[in-house]
Protein backbone atom coordinates (compact mmCIF):
# COMPACT_ATOMS: atom_id res chain seq x y z
CA UNK A 1 0.00 0.00 0.00
CA UNK A 2 1.38 3.42 -0.88
CA UNK A 3 2.20 5.99 1.76
CA UNK A 4 -0.75 8.19 0.90
CA UNK A 5 -3.21 5.34 1.16
CA UNK A 6 -1.76 4.15 4.42
CA UNK A 7 -2.16 7.56 5.95
CA UNK A 8 -5.79 7.96 6.84
CA UNK A 9 -7.47 11.30 7.21
CA UNK A 10 -8.26 10.44 10.79
CA UNK A 11 -4.58 10.15 11.51
CA UNK A 12 -4.10 13.68 10.27
CA UNK A 13 -6.83 14.85 12.61
CA UNK A 14 -5.01 13.32 15.54
CA UNK A 15 -1.75 14.87 14.36
CA UNK A 16 -3.45 18.24 14.09
CA UNK A 17 -3.98 18.11 17.81
CA UNK A 18 -0.21 17.89 18.37
CA UNK A 19 0.34 20.63 15.82
CA UNK A 20 -2.19 22.79 17.65
CA UNK A 21 -0.38 22.42 20.94
CA UNK A 22 2.96 23.16 19.31
CA UNK A 23 1.51 26.33 17.77
CA UNK A 24 0.19 27.45 21.17
CA UNK A 25 3.62 26.93 22.77
CA UNK A 26 5.29 29.05 20.13
CA UNK A 27 2.61 31.75 20.38
CA UNK A 28 3.01 31.87 24.13
CA UNK A 29 6.64 32.94 23.94
CA UNK A 30 6.14 35.47 21.17
CA UNK A 31 5.89 39.24 21.52
CA UNK A 32 3.61 41.48 19.51
CA UNK A 33 3.76 41.01 15.76
CA UNK A 34 2.20 43.14 13.05
CA UNK A 35 -1.06 41.76 11.68
CA UNK A 36 0.33 42.22 8.18
CA UNK A 37 3.17 39.89 9.16
CA UNK A 38 0.70 37.25 10.33
CA UNK A 39 -1.34 37.62 7.15
CA UNK A 40 1.84 37.21 5.11
CA UNK A 41 2.53 33.91 6.87
CA UNK A 42 -1.01 32.70 6.22
CA UNK A 43 -0.85 33.44 2.52
CA UNK A 44 2.32 31.35 2.20
CA UNK A 45 1.17 28.51 4.44
CA UNK A 46 0.18 26.23 1.58
CA UNK A 47 3.73 25.99 0.25
CA UNK A 48 6.19 25.02 3.01
CA UNK A 49 9.38 25.52 1.00
CA UNK A 50 8.28 28.98 -0.10
CA UNK A 51 7.39 29.78 3.49
CA UNK A 52 10.85 28.73 4.67
CA UNK A 53 12.50 30.99 2.12
CA UNK A 54 10.23 33.83 3.12
CA UNK A 55 11.06 33.36 6.81
CA UNK A 56 14.76 33.39 6.09
CA UNK A 57 14.46 36.65 4.10
CA UNK A 58 12.30 38.22 6.77
CA UNK A 59 14.77 37.26 9.45
CA UNK A 60 17.60 39.24 7.84
CA UNK A 61 15.25 42.15 7.34
CA UNK A 62 14.09 42.10 10.94
CA UNK A 63 17.67 42.28 12.23
CA UNK A 64 18.31 45.21 9.91
CA UNK A 65 15.16 46.95 11.11
CA UNK A 66 15.95 46.34 14.77
CA UNK A 67 12.90 44.21 15.55
CA UNK A 68 14.68 41.90 17.94
CA UNK A 69 11.81 39.59 18.84
CA UNK A 70 11.01 38.72 15.23
CA UNK A 71 14.04 36.53 14.41
CA UNK A 72 13.48 34.06 17.29
CA UNK A 73 9.85 33.79 16.20
CA UNK A 74 10.85 33.16 12.57
CA UNK A 75 13.36 30.57 13.79
CA UNK A 76 10.65 28.87 15.81
CA UNK A 77 8.33 28.70 12.81
CA UNK A 78 11.12 27.39 10.56
CA UNK A 79 12.04 24.70 13.08
CA UNK A 80 8.42 23.61 13.32
CA UNK A 81 8.09 23.43 9.52
CA UNK A 82 11.20 21.29 9.26
CA UNK A 83 10.10 19.06 12.12
CA UNK A 84 6.71 18.58 10.46
CA UNK A 85 8.57 17.76 7.26
CA UNK A 86 10.48 15.00 8.99
CA UNK A 87 7.26 13.72 10.53
CA UNK A 88 5.54 13.72 7.15
CA UNK A 89 8.43 11.80 5.62
CA UNK A 90 8.16 9.21 8.35
CA UNK A 91 4.41 8.90 7.92
CA UNK A 92 4.48 8.16 4.21
CA UNK A 93 7.72 6.21 4.23
CA UNK A 94 9.84 8.68 2.27
CA UNK A 95 13.39 7.37 1.96
CA UNK A 96 15.32 8.48 5.00
CA UNK A 97 18.22 10.79 4.32
CA UNK A 98 21.08 11.76 6.53
CA UNK A 99 20.17 15.43 6.46
CA UNK A 100 18.07 16.34 9.47
CA UNK A 101 15.25 18.75 8.76
CA UNK A 102 15.06 17.83 5.09
CA UNK A 103 11.66 18.38 3.52
CA UNK A 104 9.66 15.48 2.01
CA UNK A 105 10.62 14.60 -1.54
CA UNK A 106 7.74 12.40 -2.67
CA UNK A 107 4.36 13.85 -3.69
CA UNK A 108 2.68 11.95 -0.85
CA UNK A 109 5.09 13.31 1.73
CA UNK A 110 4.75 16.82 0.36
CA UNK A 111 0.96 16.61 0.46
CA UNK A 112 0.95 15.54 4.11
CA UNK A 113 3.51 18.20 4.94
CA UNK A 114 1.37 20.90 3.31
CA UNK A 115 -1.66 19.87 5.36
CA UNK A 116 0.28 19.89 8.63
CA UNK A 117 2.03 23.20 7.94
CA UNK A 118 -1.22 24.81 6.87
CA UNK A 119 -2.84 23.73 10.15
CA UNK A 120 0.16 24.89 12.15
CA UNK A 121 0.16 28.38 10.63
CA UNK A 122 -3.63 28.71 11.01
CA UNK A 123 -3.46 27.78 14.70
CA UNK A 124 -0.42 29.97 15.30
CA UNK A 125 -1.70 33.12 13.60
CA UNK A 126 -5.20 32.89 15.07
CA UNK A 127 -3.74 32.48 18.56
CA UNK A 128 -1.41 35.45 18.08
CA UNK A 129 -4.16 37.66 16.67
CA UNK A 130 -6.36 36.70 19.59
CA UNK A 131 -3.66 37.50 22.13
CA UNK A 132 -2.90 40.80 20.47
CA UNK A 133 -6.50 42.02 20.21
CA UNK A 134 -7.31 44.94 22.51
CA UNK A 135 -9.21 43.66 25.50
CA UNK A 136 -11.55 45.85 27.46
CA UNK A 137 -12.92 43.29 29.88
CA UNK A 138 -16.26 41.57 29.72
CA UNK A 139 -19.52 42.20 31.51
CA UNK A 140 -18.70 39.28 33.74
CA UNK A 141 -15.20 40.35 34.68
CA UNK A 142 -15.29 41.36 38.29
CA UNK A 143 -11.72 42.52 38.30
CA UNK A 144 -12.20 45.41 35.87
CA UNK A 145 -10.58 45.79 32.47
CA UNK A 146 -7.91 43.31 31.61
CA UNK A 147 -4.43 44.50 30.85
CA UNK A 148 -3.88 45.19 27.14
CA UNK A 149 -2.91 42.06 25.32
CA UNK A 150 -2.92 40.17 28.57
CA UNK A 151 -6.35 38.64 29.02
CA UNK A 152 -6.37 35.38 27.23
CA UNK A 153 -9.07 32.88 28.00
CA UNK A 154 -7.24 30.09 26.34
CA UNK A 155 -4.65 30.34 29.06
CA UNK A 156 -6.77 30.66 32.10
CA UNK A 157 -9.31 28.92 34.22
CA UNK A 158 -13.00 29.79 34.37
CA UNK A 159 -14.17 33.33 33.73
CA UNK A 160 -13.20 35.73 36.50
CA UNK A 161 -10.54 33.36 37.67
CA UNK A 162 -7.19 34.80 38.66
CA UNK A 163 -5.50 31.45 38.33
CA UNK A 164 -2.48 31.14 36.05
CA UNK A 165 -3.49 30.81 32.42
CA UNK A 166 -3.31 27.55 30.59
CA UNK A 167 -3.52 26.92 26.87
CA UNK A 168 -6.71 25.45 25.38
CA UNK A 169 -5.86 21.82 24.75
CA UNK A 170 -8.82 20.52 22.90
CA UNK A 171 -7.34 17.12 22.51
CA UNK A 172 -6.34 16.54 26.10
Amino acid at each position, binding site marked *: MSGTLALEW*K*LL*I*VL*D*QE*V*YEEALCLAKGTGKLANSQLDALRTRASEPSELLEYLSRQKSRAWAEDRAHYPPFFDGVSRAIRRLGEQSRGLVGDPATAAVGRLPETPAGQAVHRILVH*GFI*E*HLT*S*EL*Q*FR*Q*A*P*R*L*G*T*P*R*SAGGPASPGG*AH*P*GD*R*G*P*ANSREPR*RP*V*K*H*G*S
Partner: protein
Amino acid sequence: MKPLRLRQAVSLQAEAMYGEPLALAARVGPVFAKQREDGAGRGQFHRFEAVVCSAERVGVILDHVKRQAARLRAWRESGLADEFLCWVNEKLPGHTAEVRRRMGEDLSPEEELTVKLLLVQEYVRALVAQVEFDRTKSEVERS
Protein backbone atom coordinates in the same frame (compact mmCIF):
# COMPACT_ATOMS: atom_id res chain seq x y z
CA MET B 1 -22.58 -0.66 15.94
CA LYS B 2 -20.00 1.32 17.86
CA PRO B 3 -20.47 4.55 15.86
CA LEU B 4 -24.20 4.38 16.58
CA ARG B 5 -23.64 3.84 20.29
CA LEU B 6 -21.17 6.69 20.27
CA ARG B 7 -23.74 9.01 18.70
CA GLN B 8 -26.30 7.93 21.26
CA ALA B 9 -23.92 8.57 24.15
CA VAL B 10 -23.09 12.01 22.72
CA SER B 11 -26.81 12.84 22.37
CA LEU B 12 -27.47 11.88 25.98
CA GLN B 13 -24.54 13.99 27.13
CA ALA B 14 -25.72 16.90 24.99
CA GLU B 15 -29.03 16.71 26.83
CA ALA B 16 -27.24 16.66 30.17
CA MET B 17 -25.19 19.77 29.38
CA TYR B 18 -27.98 21.67 27.61
CA GLY B 19 -28.14 24.36 30.31
CA GLU B 20 -24.55 25.46 29.70
CA PRO B 21 -24.99 26.99 26.22
CA LEU B 22 -28.29 28.54 27.32
CA ALA B 23 -26.58 30.30 30.21
CA LEU B 24 -23.94 31.68 27.85
CA ALA B 25 -26.63 32.76 25.38
CA ALA B 26 -28.37 34.74 28.11
CA ARG B 27 -25.14 36.63 28.82
CA VAL B 28 -23.86 37.29 25.31
CA GLY B 29 -27.16 37.78 23.45
CA PRO B 30 -27.97 41.25 24.86
CA VAL B 31 -24.42 42.52 24.16
CA PHE B 32 -24.60 41.39 20.55
CA ALA B 33 -28.04 42.93 20.19
CA LYS B 34 -26.65 46.33 21.24
CA GLN B 35 -23.56 46.23 19.02
CA ARG B 36 -25.02 46.01 15.57
CA GLU B 37 -22.59 48.58 14.20
CA ASP B 38 -19.82 46.07 14.76
CA GLY B 39 -21.37 43.61 12.33
CA ALA B 40 -22.60 41.65 15.32
CA GLY B 41 -25.96 40.84 13.84
CA ARG B 42 -27.63 37.53 13.17
CA GLY B 43 -25.19 36.76 10.39
CA GLN B 44 -22.37 36.45 12.91
CA PHE B 45 -24.09 33.64 14.72
CA HIS B 46 -25.25 31.90 11.59
CA ARG B 47 -21.72 31.97 10.23
CA PHE B 48 -20.41 30.66 13.54
CA GLU B 49 -22.86 27.78 13.41
CA ALA B 50 -21.97 27.03 9.79
CA VAL B 51 -18.24 26.94 10.55
CA VAL B 52 -18.78 24.73 13.58
CA CYS B 53 -21.10 22.28 11.86
CA SER B 54 -18.83 21.87 8.85
CA ALA B 55 -15.60 21.59 10.87
CA GLU B 56 -13.72 18.32 10.80
CA ARG B 57 -11.74 19.08 13.93
CA VAL B 58 -12.08 21.25 17.00
CA GLY B 59 -8.92 23.21 16.19
CA VAL B 60 -10.63 24.80 13.20
CA ILE B 61 -13.45 26.02 15.45
CA LEU B 62 -11.03 27.45 18.00
CA ASP B 63 -9.16 29.26 15.22
CA HIS B 64 -12.42 30.77 14.00
CA VAL B 65 -13.42 31.99 17.46
CA LYS B 66 -10.01 33.54 18.06
CA ARG B 67 -10.02 35.33 14.72
CA GLN B 68 -13.52 36.66 15.27
CA ALA B 69 -12.52 37.88 18.73
CA ALA B 70 -9.46 39.59 17.27
CA ARG B 71 -11.60 41.23 14.57
CA LEU B 72 -14.86 42.11 16.33
CA ARG B 73 -15.44 43.92 19.59
CA ALA B 74 -18.71 42.14 20.31
CA TRP B 75 -16.96 38.79 20.47
CA ARG B 76 -14.57 40.15 23.06
CA GLU B 77 -16.83 42.42 25.08
CA SER B 78 -19.73 40.03 25.33
CA GLY B 79 -17.41 37.36 26.67
CA LEU B 80 -18.47 34.96 23.94
CA ALA B 81 -14.93 34.11 22.85
CA ASP B 82 -13.52 34.00 26.37
CA GLU B 83 -16.26 31.87 27.82
CA PHE B 84 -16.50 29.54 24.86
CA LEU B 85 -12.77 28.87 24.97
CA CYS B 86 -12.95 28.39 28.74
CA TRP B 87 -15.75 25.90 28.25
CA VAL B 88 -13.61 23.97 25.76
CA ASN B 89 -10.72 24.05 28.19
CA GLU B 90 -12.53 23.37 31.44
CA LYS B 91 -15.78 21.59 30.80
CA LEU B 92 -15.40 19.71 27.53
CA PRO B 93 -12.89 17.15 28.90
CA GLY B 94 -15.39 16.29 31.66
CA HIS B 95 -18.25 15.86 29.19
CA THR B 96 -16.03 13.69 27.01
CA ALA B 97 -15.17 11.54 30.00
CA GLU B 98 -18.87 11.20 30.70
CA VAL B 99 -19.48 9.95 27.15
CA ARG B 100 -16.67 7.44 27.66
CA ARG B 101 -18.36 6.29 30.86
CA ARG B 102 -21.70 5.94 29.08
CA MET B 103 -20.01 3.86 26.39
CA GLY B 104 -18.50 1.64 29.04
CA GLU B 105 -15.27 1.22 27.13
CA ASP B 106 -12.15 3.10 26.16
CA LEU B 107 -12.23 5.30 23.11
CA SER B 108 -9.48 5.46 20.51
CA PRO B 109 -7.78 8.86 20.06
CA GLU B 110 -9.80 9.42 16.85
CA GLU B 111 -13.05 8.52 18.63
CA GLU B 112 -12.22 10.82 21.50
CA LEU B 113 -11.61 13.71 19.11
CA THR B 114 -14.83 12.89 17.29
CA VAL B 115 -16.75 12.99 20.57
CA LYS B 116 -15.26 16.38 21.38
CA LEU B 117 -16.17 17.72 17.97
CA LEU B 118 -19.75 16.42 18.23
CA LEU B 119 -20.18 17.90 21.70
CA VAL B 120 -18.87 21.29 20.56
CA GLN B 121 -21.29 21.17 17.63
CA GLU B 122 -24.19 20.40 19.96
CA TYR B 123 -23.13 23.20 22.29
CA VAL B 124 -22.92 25.80 19.53
CA ARG B 125 -26.17 24.72 17.90
CA ALA B 126 -27.98 25.18 21.21
CA LEU B 127 -26.20 28.51 21.84
CA VAL B 128 -27.10 29.96 18.45
CA ALA B 129 -30.70 28.75 18.64
CA GLN B 130 -31.14 30.34 22.05
CA VAL B 131 -29.59 33.67 21.04
CA GLU B 132 -31.84 33.74 17.98
CA PHE B 133 -34.88 32.85 20.06
CA ASP B 134 -34.15 35.52 22.68
CA ARG B 135 -33.53 38.17 20.07
CA THR B 136 -36.75 37.46 18.19
CA LYS B 137 -38.67 37.36 21.45
CA SER B 138 -37.39 40.76 22.55
CA GLU B 139 -38.09 42.21 19.08
CA VAL B 140 -41.68 40.96 19.24
CA GLU B 141 -42.08 42.36 22.74
CA ARG B 142 -40.80 45.77 21.64
CA SER B 143 -43.07 45.99 18.59
